């Protein structure tokens, strides 16, 4: 897969050309200085070659003026690169609010992917073109890295936490997916592909693939079987434990006066290590679930908790799909569907 520019990989996301632009600028600067230094070197080496074994050139003192000049010019150029590049980086890692969420779990040596509509894939990710996609990623074992060269995006997948990255594909096609962080024996086999499809094709793909229970619904079942329901209430309305409905994205007041945002990271920690951040007004009564549930199950619980909105008590279903952008086409989660 090549783009029309030689030695540039295929460009298929909104970031591709932004990163390429910085890359071209850097390449230009590099080429300019390398050629400049080389040309001056070659010229001096030929011009001032030793003509007689006895010649001694006159010493030259340094010049602060020249040195200042050739410190300031590179510094200014460096700062233009820094500023431009930092701006693009900031966009790359600030996921938009309305992105469609996809869960990724790395595992030696495969990628397990679950859409919020329930479809699961291994080593393949199907996405619609022109939609913002946010990946919420973790791993069951060692550090991996989700790298799609055509999208110019890459982020480590770190055990014990969620990392995120987002992209918007601009061109349909099949692109390489690589694990870029060395992860053991079959590291170079931990590869796959990202398939970018037209919106309609993607919808066909979604309906053609049997959707398993959506993560939110699977999460609700776990919520029952693990007994969360007894303290947090059937709809997350709270009780002996804090309220979960409408929790995601809010600020949580902790015992001790601090407050933290209720993001993926916080919810994960509160399930695995509930004593780490106690909500103000609640005792340390929740058992730890460290080692009791898998990464996949954690992701499902997370999806369920995200789906819990503040609602009327008689409604008992997760009110909204966790992926707003697909809420209209994705199957609506049906509680207790069996």
């Amino acid at each position: 897969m090549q783009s029309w520019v030689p030695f540039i990989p295929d460009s298929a996301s909104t970031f591709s050309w932004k990163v390429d632009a910085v890359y071209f600028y850097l390449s230009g600067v590099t080429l300019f200085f390398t050629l400049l230094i080389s040309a001056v070197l070659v010229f001096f080496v030929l011009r001032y070659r030793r003509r007689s074994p006895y010649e001694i050139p006159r010493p030259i003192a340094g010049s602060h003026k020249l040195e200042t000049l050739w410190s300031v010019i590179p510094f200014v150029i460096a700062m233009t690169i820094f500023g431009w590049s930092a701006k693009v980086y900031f966009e790359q890692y600030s996921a938009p609010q309305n992105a469609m969420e996809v869960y990724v779990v790395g595992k030696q040596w495969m990628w397990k992917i679950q859409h919020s509509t329930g479809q699961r894939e291994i080593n393949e990710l199907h996405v619609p073109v022109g939609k913002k996609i946010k990946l919420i990623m973790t791993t069951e074992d060692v550090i991996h890295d989700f790298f799609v060269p055509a999208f110019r995006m890459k982020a480590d997948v770190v055990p014990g936490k969620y990392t995120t990255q987002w992209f918007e594909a601009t061109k349909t096609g099949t692109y390489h997916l690589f694990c870029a962080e060395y992860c053991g024996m079959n590291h170079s086999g931990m590869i796959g592909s990202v398939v970018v499809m037209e919106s309609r094709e993607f919808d066909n793909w979604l309906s053609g693939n049997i959707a398993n229970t959506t993560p939110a619904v699977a999460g609700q079942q776990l919520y029952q079987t693990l007994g969360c329901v007894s303290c947090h209430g059937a709809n997350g309305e709270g009780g002996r434990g804090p309220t979960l409905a409408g929790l995601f994205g809010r600020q949580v007041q902790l015992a001790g006066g601090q407050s933290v945002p209720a993001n993926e990271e916080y919810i994960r920690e509160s399930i695995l290590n509930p004593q780490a951040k106690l909500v103000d007004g609640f005792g340390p009564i929740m058992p730890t679930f460290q080692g009791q549930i898998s990464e996949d199950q954690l992701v499902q619980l997370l999806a369920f908790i995200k789906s819990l909105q503040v609602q009327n008590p008689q409604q008992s279903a997760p009110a909204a799909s966790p992926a707003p952008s697909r809420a209209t086409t994705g199957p609506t989660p049906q509680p207790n569907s069996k």
Partner: protein
Amino acid sequence: MKEFEAFDLPTPSRINYINAQYGLKSWLLTKDHKRIALLYLASITFFFFLGGLYAMMIRLELLTPQGDLLQSTTYNKVFTQHGILMVFFFLIPSIPATLGNFLVPMMIGAKDLAFPRINLLSWYVYMLGGLITIYALLAGGVDTGWTFYTPFSTTFSNSYVVAAGLGIFINGFSSILTGLNFIVTIHTMRAPGMTWFRLPLFIWAHYATSLVMILGTPVIAITILLLAFERVSRVGIFDPALGGDPILFQHLFWFYSHPAVYIMILPSMGVISELIANFSRKNIFGYKFVAFSSLAIAVFGFLVWGHHMFVTSQSIYAGMIFSFLSFAVAIPSAVKVFNWTATLYKSSISYDTPMLYALGFIGLFTIGGMTGLFLASLATDVHLTDTYFVVAHFHYIMVGGALMGYLGGLHYWWPKISGRMYPEGWGRFSALVIFVGFNLTFLPQFVAGYMGMPRRYHAYPPEFQVFNVLSSAGASILGFGMLIPAIYFVWSMRYGRIAEGNPWHLPGLEWRSQSPPITENFDTTPVVTWEAYEFAPPEETEIVGKFAGELETAS
């Protein structure tokens, strides 16, 4: 012309440091810094060729896209061991422990280093670390990458992580001892008249390197100890399953390992300053700036480790600060390149082998440094990190920079070290072969990296094959080029033309003793009355620029 030969060189004595004593015991128990330098030279050469053998296995495997020559576990061990041997057992000790050990006392007019016994101890410590590491390789090898990232290294790898870690841990103390020795020697043992600003830039570079060695090395020692502790006793430090933080390991590891890059490159920059000045018979343009830039690089080198971690979930604001500091630390290096180049203006340039290496260094280091900006720059680093672009970049710094400086220095001081000349024609030929082979090996890797080829891949998609074939072809030329000096250096020890005390006709202190020097280096302690690189009397100094008041004068 000033007659450098007229530096009342003493009538050469038949006794020198090499033949002063005979027998294995006289070498293994020596306290002479020059003999210890030779012990180091032999040892690091062994590790270099062992590491090179692994490099050849990597390049052979990558000739084809399929993983067909080695099994994936073997391949993983091969690149890990290539990295460990080259970084910890060749590059870090290379210039300081051989050329530095030999020349620091000679260049400042001292009889030996401040602590000769500690100097010998450092070699034994190095060898002990080396032997334990070799045990780890023979027992079954290590497959974690030289970076030992957790929790792979502490929980998932089934290889000899603790043994290899122990070898590196012990080896670190030899760096600390060498650094300590240099700092004390440079502070307290300079000959009368050898003021700080008369020191050759080689000494300034070693002073800066020594600071990094004693400040940085303890951190890697602690980190490896914690890693071994977690692996053996399952106490949670880095593995999240045990309650640890895997990113903490990366912070600790790079807090040493980024400055370690400066341990490798600063001494080489010192060598290049010597070569540029001496083979163009010109004082270094802006001596003080070049001297202080070494210190600046050493200090600011401790503040940029986070640029290895832009995609590891480190805060994006931390990423921005580390990116900014990384751009800032590039400036002193850039100015060094400009100053070296400016030194050549209106000079008298010889084309001897050491100068060829110095010129090659400037070109390759410029490419290595400039491509470092691609990785200091945040958006491009996201795409390029963990690809072959990174591999190419750091080889340009470590081979194109550090190794070229080492080889240039070894040729330059070989007559002093061995008392014999190396064959000049073969020297120039091999320098050219190495330069061509090196570029052919690593230039294609920049492209492969931007195209998206991840590093540490045993098998790869076929579209990357063309770059890998070029790279492997280059590596075979490079490997051949490296063999030539190995052969002729050994050959010259017996058959080389006998070198006089000052074969290059230079003013430096080390050339005012006989070749090879006597055990005490100088008959009488020299008194220094001249500036560094003083080829012509200071009154002949030409002034450039307008404001004479602003100028640094050579005197």
